């Protein structure tokens, strides 16, 4: 035993040392590009030259006058909200199923988590096949079941394409949300659920008046993750529709990529990418507040 104080005893120093790598990572790979993006959005920089001129709010004015941008903005909102609503409903239902005991539960849980482990790009490519205009398994299945009479051009019609994007985004977040809801459910004291049973509450009353309110903090956090994940995702839309047909299914990240990188207009691309930031911050603060309020109410 060493009589002198070692590094392990000096928590204030040790803390700094252990935090340093993470801090460096965040500053270099998140902070710098982030600040750069904000600066670029006020400039007329292009990918082809090193010229860097102050453009003021011109980029923002340009995108706000651009119908493609406005459409992408709306799409982002629709996809984000739509997929999260779908996720909450599905995850709650799935969690109810996984709470019971049944044969093959472990295997089912493993399968449930798969979408989360598959790289987005790979999964999106698989989904393009599922939604393919000729080979769509959905169409073939619906036809075989006699439910479909025309033919659905999933990725060819703006409305259907958006629906397809919502489905894939929901599919991607769903496992994570289910796991979170399951954890939340298991944290509800058994006696409270039993009290509700004795008090005469049926399944739906228990779900909506006891379990879901108690799950609110946890579900809110899950949805917040989902919102940030979905609103900032590039891969799914890029691979599934590429923003098409005719730029109708762009979301902000894909449009930013198209304008800023492919179209070489760094300034406008950055403005599109940064545009969502204030909204996301407001949403995040509001949801965290809600979660905290619900939690205080629960204790």
């Amino acid at each position, binding site marked *: 035993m060493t009589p002198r104080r070692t590094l392990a005893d000096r928590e204030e120093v040790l803390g700094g040392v252990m935090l340093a790598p993470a801090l460096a990572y965040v500053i270099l790979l998140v902070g710098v590009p982030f600040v750069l993006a904000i600066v670029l959005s006020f400039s007329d920089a292009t990918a082809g030259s090193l010229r860097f001129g102050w453009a003021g709010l011109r980029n923002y004015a340009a995108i706000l006058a651009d119908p493609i941008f406005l459409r992408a903005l709306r799409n982002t909102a629709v996809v984000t909200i739509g997929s999260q609503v779908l996720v909450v409903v599905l995850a709650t239902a799935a969690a109810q199923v996984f709470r019971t005991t049944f044969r093959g539960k472990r295997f089912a849980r493993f399968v449930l988590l798969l979408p989360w482990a598959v790289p987005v790009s790979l999964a999106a490519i698989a989904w393009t096949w599922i939604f393919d205009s000729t080979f769509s398994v959905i169409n073939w299945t619906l036809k075989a079941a006699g439910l479909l009479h025309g033919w659905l051009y999933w990725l060819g019609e703006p409305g259907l394409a958006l629906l397809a994007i919502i489905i894939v985004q929901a599919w991607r977040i769903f496992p994570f949300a289910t796991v979170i809801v399951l954890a939340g459910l298991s944290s509800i*004291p058994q*006696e*409270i659920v*039993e*009290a*509700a*049973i*004795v*008090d*005469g*509450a*049926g399944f739906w*009353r228990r779900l909506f*008046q*006891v379990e879901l*309110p*108690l799950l*609110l903090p946890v579900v809110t956090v899950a949805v917040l993750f989902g919102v940030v994940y979905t609103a900032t995702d590039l891969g799914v839309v890029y691979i599934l529709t590429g923003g098409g047909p005719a730029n109708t299914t762009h979301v902000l990240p894909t449009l930013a990529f198209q304008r800023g990188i492919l179209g070489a207009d760094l300034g406008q691309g950055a403005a599109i990418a940064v545009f969502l930031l204030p909204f996301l911050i407001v949403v995040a603060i509001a949801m965290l507040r809600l979660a905290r309020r*619900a939690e205080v*109410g*629960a*204790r």
Partner: protein
Amino acid sequence: MAGIEIRSLRKQFGDLHAVDGVDLSIRDGEFLVLLGSSGSGKTTLLRMIAGLERPTAGEIHIGGERVDGDVPPRARGIAMVFQSYALYPHRTVFKNIAFPLEAVRTPRKQIEEKVRWAADMFSITRYLDRYPRQLSGGERQRVALCRALVRDPKVFLLDEPLANLDAKLRNTARDDLKRFQRRIQTTTVYVTHDQVEAMGLGDRIVVMEHGKVRQVGTPQEVYEDPVDTFVATFVGQPPMNLLDLRDASLPAGTLVGFRPEHLLPRSVFGPGEDLRTLRFSVRRVEYLGSDRYVYGSVLESAAPDATVIAKLPANIALAIPEGETHEFAVPRRLLRYFDAATGLRRPP
């Protein structure tokens, strides 16, 4: 209102017999206490009556209707108070008490009336707008009782409702509970591991051990005429003294039992009384205000080291020096005899 009939009721968890063949007949309007140490199967028995646990075998009848099997808790006409109270943390006190009424779609106005009536009964009207976390333990317990009360149940099931209260509060809560039950006269099954609570509350007490019923009787019967050594030592504080006095007049292997308050100095008894005198070697005297506990051993005992306790009321002022042997005695009519091998009661 209704009585409860329980016949050969069993519950197994794997190899464990949590409730092991219980027969009970609970009268209409009775306050019945299930008393037993932790793990003796009290909660399991209560949960089977409530319908939260399915019996492995046996029958339960509430108000003449057979309810084991598929009758769900809500159809049994019962209300339950859990040990943790299980209040809904996200609902106000009002909404907590209203919950069972909402579940049966009671009209709004009636809910309001009923909740106020119940809250008034337990003097918690002031707290109706608060959340459970803003209440003390005693207030929460009363909210839980209110929530059980508004359903107009045929049977109240209470699982250690006072266990989470501090000692002082427990006394008043016990009194409130008893008065309340006398007033509404609803059949009540009350679980506790505290024998003082059981004695104070129960019309009858069921003493349980290892899933089996050891004795059913009024507090007085259970205290004065325990059927075996388990009940004798479980009920009463300090417990009954059990000694093998090697008495020639008794069959071999007989334990003699007597309550600490019946073992008194020889000199305090009148001359006419039929006494069993014992030489009591006093080790220590504990002064407790209203009583003195005298610890020592009885020289006539087959195990002279076994601790024997005498409980002397304050009006016996006699000096009892420690370290000396004194002449003590127990009236013979208060002696109880048990078989040392089986623990069962023996006729004198």
